[in-house]
């Protein structure tokens, strides 16, 4: 969670609302696909990321050779565990996000963002969900907990999609609590181009 966000990019919350949130604690969002949320949500992604004790090789970019010519169904459940980490062609996530690919499907899982939405492009097959707490705190372990946001979307020839992530901050000092734009994910595969292109625009 970033604490310093440009004033020009913020929502502002009243203090009363912030206090209320702190008291009420958990506010889970429902998954768009209960099966996916239960078995292939952020938890599944995390396991894939930590499966190797050795330093993992640097993620490679998604290339056309990874993608079947025919469209496939979106991966479900544990299928995502076999997905490989990929890197964007340009830009980087700073919100603890990991991007994985399986066939023509990519999953972006962010550990410290609190929302996301498909800004533009065909919504078919796109899923977005958020889980966790805004300012979670586990009294048993005396540790902070974080929220997660996950986005699944296809990478297909001739199509482009734009996804914006949302972060949330308590603000600086006594500043108000805020929600605002985080990175923007741009996934495009222009007709006639050999390769897809994935960019992460800065906050």
């Amino acid at each position, binding site marked *: 969670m970033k604490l310093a966000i440009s004033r020009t*990019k913020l929502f502002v919350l009243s203090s009363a609302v912030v206090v209320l949130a702190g008291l009420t604690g958990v506010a889970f969002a429902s998954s768009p696909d209960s099966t996916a949320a239960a078995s292939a949500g952020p938890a599944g992604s995390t396991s894939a990321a930590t499966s190797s004790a050795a330093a993992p090789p640097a993620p490679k970019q998604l290339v056309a050779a990874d993608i079947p010519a025919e469209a496939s169904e979106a991966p479900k459940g544990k299928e995502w565990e076999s997905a490989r980490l990929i890197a964007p062609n340009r830009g980087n996530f700073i919100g603890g996000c990991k991007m994985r690919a399986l066939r023509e499907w990519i999953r972006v899982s962010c550990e410290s963002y609190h929302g996301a939405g498909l800004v533009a492009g065909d919504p078919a097959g796109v899923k977005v969900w958020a889980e966790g707490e805004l300012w979670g705190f586990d009294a048993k372990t005396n540790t902070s907990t974080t929220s997660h946001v996950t986005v699944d979307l296809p990478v297909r020839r001739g199509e482009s999609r734009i996804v914006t992530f949302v972060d949330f901050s308590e603000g600086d000092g006594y500043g108000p609590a805020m929600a605002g734009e985080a990175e923007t994910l741009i996934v495009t595969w222009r007709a006639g181009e050999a390769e897809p292109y994935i960019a992460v625009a800065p906050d």
Partner: protein
Amino acid sequence: MVRASFVSLTLSLAVVGWGCQGQEGGAPAPSASTPGSSASIDGGPVDPANPTRAAAVTLQGSGIALTPDERTAIIAGEDSDALFIVPAKTDSKREEVKMLALPGPPAQVVAMDGLVLVTIRTLPTAEAKVARDVIKGPAPAEQQKRGTPAIRFDPSVVKKSQGGLLLAFAPDAAFDGGLREVARLTLAPDAWGLAVTPDGARAVVTSAWSGEVSVVDVSGAREGKLAKVTTLSVAREPRGVAVSPDGKTAYISHLVGTSLTRIDDLDQASPRASEQALPAAISRTALGTKVNASLGYAPVIDAEGKTLFLPRHALGAEGMESWWGLPTVDTLDIPTGKPLQPARVAGSPKHALAFDGGARFMPAPEWGAIEGFGPSQEEGVVQPRAAVYRKKSKTLLVASEGFDRVVELDARVPDPAMMPVRTFPIGDGYDKFGDYAKSGGAPSAIVLSRDETVAWVFCRSTFDLARIELDGAPGKQLTMLHVADDGLPFDAALGRRLYYNARSDALSGGLGCASCHPDGRDDGYVWREAHFTQEGGKTSRFLALRELSKFNGMFMGAPVEDAKFYARQTPMIAGRLRADGPYGWHGENKDVLDRLIAGFSLHRGNWQRWSAANKDVGQDVAKVDYLADYLRSGLLPPPVVERELDAVETKGKEIFESKQAKCTSCHVPETELTDRKSYELGRLRTLAGFDEEENDAFKTPSLRFIGGSAPYFHDGSAATLDDLVRNNGNRMGDTRHLQPDDQKALAAYLRTL
């Protein structure tokens, strides 16, 4: 100010010739500037269309060009009526800058082997020339004094033009390798954009105010021949030109509106024009709506000829604090003629942690953060003014006029404005109060070296040339050369810097005057003058769209109450500020200064109130005073050819001046075609998305230059002058008796004013 030395340079016509400077060791450089000489200077490429010549660095016009040997930069000094000719090296000195006087203000340059083409916006009449020189004020020493009053010009004189020009220059050994005019072609006034086909045979020239595009045969230019192939009427304010790699098609951008003009059969006897749709910022446009666009100065085509990029401003695109909209780079897939940006789609998934039940905060459809705004303004482009495509990195370099920087954008994404890769700040020495740059202000022209490692940028408000080493070490990439001093009196020169600047929180706050009033004209847009309450506080400000009230600053997302949205079309200001006053839609401001202060209150949201509590308020007002000086003496009116009225226009003039029509009772010819009084006319039908006017007494607008500022009325409800006259009845004067031919005649006369 070194105007005296300028004059002497001008008289000498001395210029630096490319290919004629000594190389290291004193050996003369091989000449490539003489027509017909062998090419491949310094190992540079040969023009594939003519193997005896060196290839041009670029055939697309800009306010700056590099000669084929890349040793000389040629700058269109529009505000100096001259070309600045500068050695293109890292350590160029001011003393090495040469100036070539021109017959009028240049706009764009293309430098080829043995040929330089320049568009000239106007060849003023002798009377207009004298008037334009007078504006520059008294002796240079006097100009330097703070407080030097602006000289209000008479727009009816300054506008007088003999037409626009396309000038052809060739290197001339008699002037030490300098430039010699070899041909000129008179075109419609306000000749601006320029590009040459890859074979060097044809040039495409836009005439902005005239709404025309000319195709010119330049194959014989070196021998003194320029021949017009055709002239095509196009939509308002055609500006930049981009030619496809095959030389058969040209795309014309417009300063107003979203569509391009496409010129086909460019290599044939009869090129033809058609509209090429290119919707603005469709990835960031609210569902079911379309947004308008402005500032389409610089279309760019990639090296493969597959993509056209058009940096511009999307009026009404959604985003945080985007009361004005957002900058965008709209992309066109040339083979299909379709936009490349994905559109927003109803039902797109979005999700966030619920908070407070979602009732007060983050109601899903209204949640701006996932409604589609792009990268922050601080990192992005503000007032895109010029652009080039960088093939080696597949990026665009865009001159961001408002924030004094060049921004490198990823050209592989559908809207490169969303994906800034690097920012090169050029402005420096910012004024404490006005926040305008004292050097590197308002970058307005850019050219890229052939190897794409160096960008040269001309800064219009400070007259500086920036050299950016694109692959250099951070912090060591920029070198600056002050090319010339401002030719305006001191105060007006400061006002010029304010006019382009978008950084001042008090005066611009993210969008400079030049954005809505490019060249002092208008953006053709009907804004919302909004008055509403949020979080208990009353706010008044302009909004591009009613819906953008939810993006209002620190109150983003808060409910909007007691809202009124009045329609206000951007007025043209160049040549309309000579009178003492009153000003304002209802004549509510006694003079220009009063109007500007009131206007900034609307632009910036209660500006006066904030500044009144600020000890710097006096400084802010002083800045506004500088701005007023520039508006009155620096923003020159559009050029208009002096000619006799034709029979139809003469008939229209008779109607206009007739007692029955009564036009001149309010539009008084002797006082800029207005009596500056307010009248309650019949109420226009309130348009959807706006609120009913509370004050129907609108000040009589000047009709000067009305032919080029459609649409009409405060709400833009009349698309054309013909529509306005046809539907007038007796609302203004009385035109009920006019037959259709009479109506057309009256409209035709109005277009001449």
